């Protein structure tokens, strides 16, 4: 049995739809959305409410979700963003993703002896089209149970990040309105 904790139409729901019924599960498993809607904005533009709604409340929600799934679900995959590594405009998303990973690792430690495996699949965005490339990895993590407490970046290597360092380009000036 595969439990799906995700909003309809989300990337996580699309991943779950692709793998449901396609793999052998010896025990109940769960796939959980860990990418709440967040405000992507520079630090100075963020309000307290943006941070509370995009990070603090959803982290507490995720803890409650995991607590409800454990220990009956022996294999759990969280679907989240790779923003925990840091990125432009990722103050809220990055703090949430890193916090979710900390939560995941703590739950993995607490339930390791109960035979539970919990992992975090880190994706570059919440685009449902990513389901095609992410579903095989999510399915493998759920079916195997051998890996636990891990963050798997499923982004074609984008997290390697050996990029030229330069500030973000300012928006190009727009043409003056016609006279």
């Amino acid at each position: 049995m595969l439990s799906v904790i995700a909003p309809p139409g989300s990337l996580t729901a699309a991943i779950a739809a692709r793998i449901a019924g396609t793999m052998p599960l010896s025990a109940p498993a769960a796939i959980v959305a860990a990418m709440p809607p967040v405000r992507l904005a520079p630090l100075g533009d963020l309000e307290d409410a943006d941070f509370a709604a995009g990070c603090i409340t959803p982290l507490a929600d995720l803890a409650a979700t995991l607590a409800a799934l454990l220990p009956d679900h022996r294999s759990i995959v969280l679907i989240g963003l790779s923003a925990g590594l840091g990125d432009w405009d990722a103050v809220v998303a990055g703090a949430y993703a890193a916090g979710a990973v900390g939560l995941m690792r703590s739950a993995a430690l607490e339930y390791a002896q109960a035979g539970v495996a919990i992992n975090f699949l880190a994706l570059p965005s919440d685009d449902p089209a990513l389901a095609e490339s992410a579903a095989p990895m999510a399915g493998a993590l759920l079916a195997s149970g051998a890996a636990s407490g891990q963050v798997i970046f499923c982004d074609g290597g984008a997290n390697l990040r050996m990029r030229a360092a330069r500030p973000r380009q300012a928006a190009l000036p727009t043409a003056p309105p016609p006279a």
Partner: protein
Amino acid sequence: MQPHALVTGGAQGIGRSVAERLAAQGWCVTAADRDEAALAAVEGHGIAPAVLDVTDSAAVAALVDRLPPLDVVVNCAGIAAELLPLKDIPREAFERMLRVNLGGTFILAREAARRMERGAIITIASRGYLGGAGAAHYVASKAAVVGLTRALAVELRWRGISVNAVAPGMVDTRMIADFTPEMRARLSRLEPAGGPMPPATIAEAVAYLASAAGRMVNGQVMLVDGGKSLGVAPC
């Protein structure tokens, strides 16, 4: 001109030690803390006290507005809680931990960055950010502080502001004062040093990251835990 540092949680534990360490090298230091009585004890010798609740963003903004320009901000204000399995952590306790340890760090960084020209922001995470059984709320808050630190570093590096985290192992502060002797002994056995380290050890790491040379370190987590995070059980 004397550099100016704001240290939250500056009346006790790691924060107090950081305030004293920076003041000892001739810096002007503002120590902010909720605990007015404890603040009175650190006043003087280059340290000015300020009563502050880091979760009150209006108060944080007002404080930063009335202070001289900031060169360095160190967010030491934080809370721990009793060790509980994930399933037993009340929702309110979970959210409060996040509001103080994570939300407080966010608010201070935002209000400081809005006003800083150059300098360093240093957050205090914990070795626990790597995960730990029995403290999911504390771990989540500190892991998120690390994610926040990295996002801030990406954004603020172009303004000459470095943002780093120090992740201490077990430190002898009020945070572990409530531990039973048995728990303290059990946790001490996991520490390569055999027990908690003095807060001054963490203050040295902070002082380095606050220095001109240290500001070339950016977006990093400095683990100061004697190697406990290597994770191999003691023999």
